[in-house]
C-alpha cells in the first residue's frame, strides 16, 4: 500500500493534469454534435500534438531550472526548413527528415552551450538565440510557401486501424524513445538534480554539465519534431512570428499545468503533454458552448491561474519566512 502512496506523491502533478484533461475532454465530447467518435479524437489529437511536442521540449529545459524562450522559434525554423528539404522520393525525404531533426538538435545544443559554458542566464540566452532562429526562418521563407512529401504527411496525420490517430501514435513513440530513456539515464537524473539543488549535485559528483547539455539538445530535437508535424499539417513553411511566440508562451503554460515546477527538479514530460492537451481543449470547449472565440485567451488565463494556485499551497507550511525568497 505504502508503495502506491509514494508513487502517487511523485506523479501527483502528472495525474492532476491528466484529470483536468479527461474532465475537459469528457465535457467537450458530451457536448459535441458528433459525440465521441474517431474523427473527433483525430482532430483533437492533431491539434494537440504540436503543443505537446513543444511542451515536452520546454519540460526538458525547465527541469534543469532553466527556461527556453526559443522553442517557438526552433519550431518555426524547422518548419521552414522542412518545407524545403522533406520532399522528393522516399530516400530524399528520409534525408530531409534527418536533416530537420539535426538542425533542431543543433539549435538546442547551442542554447545549452551558451547557458552552461557561457554561464549566461537561460532567459537572456534563449531570447537572443530565438531571434537568431527566427531570422534564419525568415531567410528560408520570406513569404509562406514550399511543400512537403504529401504521402508521408497524410500517413502521419490520418488514422491507424481506423481509430488510432497516427499523430498520437507518433507522440507515444517519441515519449518511449526520447523521454523515457532520458529520464532514466544518469544524465537525466543529473538534469533533475541540478535543477533541484545544483550545489548538492556538484558535491555528489554528478555529471551536471553533460546532463544539462543533453536536456537542452533534446529540447531542440523535440521542438524540431513539432516543426515537422506542423509542416505535415499545413503542407507549407511559414515564418509566422506571432505563432512562434504564442507556442513559446503556451509551452510554458502547458508545462505548469502539467505539474512541472518552474523552479526546476520536479515534474515529467508526460504531465506536460496532458497539460498541453488540456490547454488546447479550452478552445474546443468554448467552441461547443458557442462562445465567441474572443473569449479564448481570457479562459485560458483563468484555467492556468487556477491550476497554478493549486501548487502554491505548500507556501503556507513554511516556518522560516526567508525561505519564501529562496
Amino acid at each position: 500500500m505504502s508503495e502506491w502512496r509514494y508513487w502517487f506523491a511523485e506523479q501527483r502533478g502528472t495525474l492532476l493534469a491528466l484529470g483536468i484533461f479527461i474532465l475537459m475532454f469528457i465535457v467537450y465530447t458530451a457536448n459535441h454534435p458528433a459525440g465521441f467518435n474517431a474523427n473527433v479524437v483525430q482532430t483533437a489529437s492533431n491539434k494537440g500534438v504540436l503543443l505537446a511536442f513543444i511542451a515536452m521540449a520546454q519540460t526538458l529545459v525547465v527541469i534543469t531550472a532553466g527556461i527556453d524562450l526559443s522553442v517557438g522559434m526552433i519550431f518555426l525554423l524547422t518548419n521552414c526548413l522542412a518545407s524545403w528539404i522533406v520532399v522528393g522520393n522516399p530516400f530524399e525525404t528520409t534525408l530531409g527528415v534527418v536533416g530537420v531533426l539535426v538542425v533542431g538538435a543543433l539549435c538546442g545544443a547551442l542554447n545549452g552551450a551558451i547557458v552552461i559554458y557561457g554561464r549566461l542566464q537561460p532567459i537572456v540566452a534563449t531570447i537572443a538565440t530565438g531571434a537568431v532562429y527566427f531570422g534564419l526562418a525568415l531567410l528560408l521563407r520570406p513569404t509562406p510557401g514550399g511543400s512537403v512529401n504529401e504521402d508521408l504527411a497524410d500517413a502521419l496525420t490520418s488514422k491507424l486501424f481506423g481509430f488510432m490517430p497516427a499523430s498520437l501514435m507518433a507522440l507515444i513513440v517519441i515519449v518511449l524513445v526520447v523521454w523515457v530513456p532520458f529520464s532514466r539515464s544518469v544524465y537525466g537524473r543529473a538534469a533533475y538534480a541540478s535543477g533541484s539543488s545544483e550545489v548538492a549535485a556538484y558535491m555528489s559528483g554528478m555529471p551536471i554539465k553533460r546532463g544539462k547539455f543533453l536536456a537542452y539538445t533534446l529540447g531542440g530535437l523535440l521542438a524540431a519534431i513539432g516543426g515537422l508535424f506542423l509542416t505535415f499539417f499545413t503542407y507549407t513553411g511559414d515564418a509566422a512570428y506571432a505563432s512562434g511566440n504564442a507556442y513559446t508562451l503556451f509551452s510554458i503554460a502547458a508545462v505548469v499545468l502539467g505539474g512541472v515546477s518552474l523552479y526546476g527538479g520536479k515534474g515529467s514530460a508526460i504531465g506536460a503533454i496532458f497539460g498541453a492537451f488540456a490547454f488546447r481543449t479550452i478552445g474546443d470547449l468554448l467552441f461547443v458552448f458557442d462562445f465567441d472565440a474572443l473569449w479564448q485567451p481570457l479562459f485560458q488565463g483563468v484555467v492556468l491561474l487556477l491550476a497554478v494556485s493549486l501548487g502554491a499551497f505548500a507556501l503556507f507550511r513554511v516556518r522560516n519566512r526567508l525561505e519564501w525568497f529562496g
Partner: protein
Amino acid sequence: MQTGQAEPLFRMEGISKRYGGVTALEDASLTLRAGRIHALLGENGAGKSTLIKVMSGVVAPDEGRMIFDGRDVSFASPAAANDAGIVCIFQELSLIPDLSVADNIIVSDPPMRFGMIDRATQRKLAEDALARAGASDIHPSALVKDLPLSRRQMVEIAKALARKPRILILDEATSALTAADVKKVIDVLKRLRDEGLALLYISHRMHEIAELADDCTVFRNGNYVATYKAGTKTDDEVVELMIGREYNHVFPPKPVRQVDQPPVLECQGLGWIGRLRDISFAVRPGEVVGLGGLDGQGQRELLLALFGVLRGTTGEVKVDGKPEMISSPSKARGAKCGMALIPEDRKTEGLMLPMTVRENLSFAALDRVSNAFGIIDTAKENALIDEMVKLLAIRTAGVDIPVGALSGGNQQKVVIAKWLMRQPRIILLNDPTRGIDVGTKQEIYQLLRRLADDGAAIIFYSTDYDELIGCCDRVLVLYDGEVKRELAGDEINVHNLIASALNISTAEAAARVGGRA
C-alpha cells in the same frame, strides 16, 4: 606512536590555505590509520572545515602534500576524492531534495540495464545501504524533501556507505540526530572501524568523542596543535589546548552596569520547531549581551525569531514590559519595537550591491525622510546620510557610487548605518565582523559601546570569543538551541566560553556554577 604499527593509510603534510588575506590553514598535518576513529577538535575558525574540504576535494590547498596509500594524491573535485575512496558527510547536506531516497543514495554510480538506470537493482542497493546505516525504517521511494532533518541525515550516512569508502569523514554528522539515532550511528561507526575503515570524526559533542575516538587532534587558528591518544587528557587539558588565540584587539572599557533600569526586551520560554528551546532572558538599555557557543547552535534562529522572520514561534517576547507579537521585520523595526538586525551575510541580506551608497542607506528609513504623501525630502535625506557617513567614518568616494565598489569593512559599516538611521532601541547583530579587516573591527567595537551608552540595548552574536570577552557585559552560551550558561563580568573568559560551548563541566566551570552544568 606505537611500535609495529602499519603504514598510515592517509597522511597530509604542510597543508596551507588562504582566502584572500585570511589564512584558514597554516602548515597543517594529519595522519589517519585504517581501523581507527580519529577525532578532530577545535573552536570556531580553527581550520577544521577547511582541512576536510581539502581532504575531500572541495578546495585545493595552496601548499602541502597528501599521501594516500603510499602515493601522492590531489583531488580536482569531490567526485575525484570519492573515486579514490574518501567520502565526506558534510554538515550542509548534499542531498537533492526532489529526488527519492534511493536515487540519492545511489547517486554516483547507479546500476545500468539497457543503457537505463536499473531501478529494481538500485532499490535493493539502497535498501542494503539504509540497513547498514541502521535506518531501515526509511522508505527508499520517499522524496528526500518530505523527510525530517534527522532522517535526511541518516540518508546522508547511507549514501556515504553505498560508495564503499576507505576513509569516511563525518563533519558534525550527528548534530541533527535524535538520541536514538545517535546511538545507532555510533554502533555503525564502530562496526565500520572494525571492518578496517579510517574514520575522521568532527563533533561538538564531547561525550560522543569520548565514546568513539581512538586518537584526537587539536587545531587552533588554522594551526596543528597536538595529537594524543583518546583518554590520555582530561577535559580541562583539552580546553587548554584549544585556547590560545592571540589577543590583538583593543576594546573600549566596559562601564559599570546600571541595574535599576527596567529591561527594554524580555524573552520568556521562546521556542521554534525544536531548533530553539525555552530561551528566556532580558536586556536593559545600555547593555551589550553576547550570544556565544559553537556556530549553528540556534544563535542565528534566535535573532531571526526576535526580528519576526520565523513562523510558529512559541513563548513570549516583551518590549518595554508589554507583550508584542512580532510577525514581520517591518513590525520589528516599527515605532513600538524599534529593532534593527544587522544580518550575517551582508551581500544577500544586508545590501543591494549594484545600488548606490545613498540608496542603500535610505532603504530602511524612507518613512523617516519622506512627507505625508510619500515624497522623499531630499534635504532631510542628505543631512541624515551625511551624519551617518561621518558617524561611522565610512570611507567612500561619494554617496552616489555603487556600494559594491566599497571594501568589505566599509560595506558592513553601510549595513550598520542603514539601521542606525532609524535610531533603533534594540540592535541585534549576527556575527557582524566576520571577514572584515582589523581596523574596521575596532571601529565597530567602539560604535557598539557608544550606542549602548546612548541607551540602546544590544544583542551581539559573534563566533569570535575575543569579541564576546571584550565587548559584552553578559554572554548567553547556546548549545542545541538552549541557553546552557549565562556568563557575567569576570566569568566571561576563554576557558568558560569554550567549556560551556562544548557543554562540558570543567573543574573551573563546575566550581563557579556550583555543579549546575
